[in-house]
């Protein structure tokens, strides 16, 4: 089943605030071999918050996405500032675009990541490729 084009423009509710702990940032920095100055999170750390917004989209029964058919096609971040320890981050996902190519749905998403004051921190653009089912 193809994903309904009515999805384009839909914005999902903001994710529950994610408290950025020093331990979690250190763990992420170690896992990627990145330098940690005690405060600043690695550049790709916001994927942790964006991922939970994308999960809300993918698990919405009305959207009609089968999770095991989804591949991450493209990712882009633009930063207003780096993520810091003690930030409380929330992501609000909007479906920007939807194309059907060769039986696959190409879903363009944008997650606006804000801090506890509602100030912009980062925008995470993800393109998800949802492969269609084999025709019988």
């Amino acid at each position: 089943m193809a994903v309904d084009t009515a999805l384009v423009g839909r914005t999902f509710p903001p994710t529950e605030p994610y408290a950025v702990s020093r331990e979690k940032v250190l763990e992420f920095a170690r896992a990627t071999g990145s330098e940690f100055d005690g405060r600043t999170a690695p550049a790709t750390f916001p994927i942790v918050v964006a991922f939970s917004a994308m999960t809300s989209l993918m698990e919405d029964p009305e959207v009609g996405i089968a999770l095991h058919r989804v591949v991450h096609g493209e990712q882009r971040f633009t930063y207003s500032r780096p993520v810091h320890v003690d930030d409380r981050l929330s992501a609000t996902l909007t479906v920007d675009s939807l194309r059907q190519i060769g039986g696959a749905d190409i879903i363009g998403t944008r997650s606006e990541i804000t801090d506890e004051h509602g100030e912009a921190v980062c925008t995470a653009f993800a393109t998800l490729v949802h492969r269609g089912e084999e025709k019988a």
Partner: protein
Amino acid sequence: MSDLVSAPAAGDSLPVQTYRVTRADLVRYAGASGDFNPIHWSDRVASSVGLPGVIAHGMFTMALAARALDTWAGAPGRVLELGCKFTKPVVVPDDEEGVEVQVAGTVKNLTEDGVHIALEVTSGGEKVLGMPKAVLVRG
């Protein structure tokens, strides 16, 4: 080779960064990122979906590109933009050696926005990310 911090110039090649990736790194990244997709740790599941073996998370490879940017910039928190396509999976064998990922970069131009960098991320001589690029804070 330039000093990206003090005097970046268009056309500068940045020192190539080489990183070794093993299965243990993928398990550690799964825990740190919360992405527990079994194609990143189970050969059985990876094969069942037609992959040649366990592959690195695309976001892990992207994180290595970000790590190289921090090294070139001399500190974390200097990235204004970072983007790529996930074009070719990095297969990580179940042995001690794992696989090497190399991150190269060239300064494309300097604008008021920052230092624009074209990256090239390869493994086994093949590009694994599509059009990876970044913008860093100037100065």
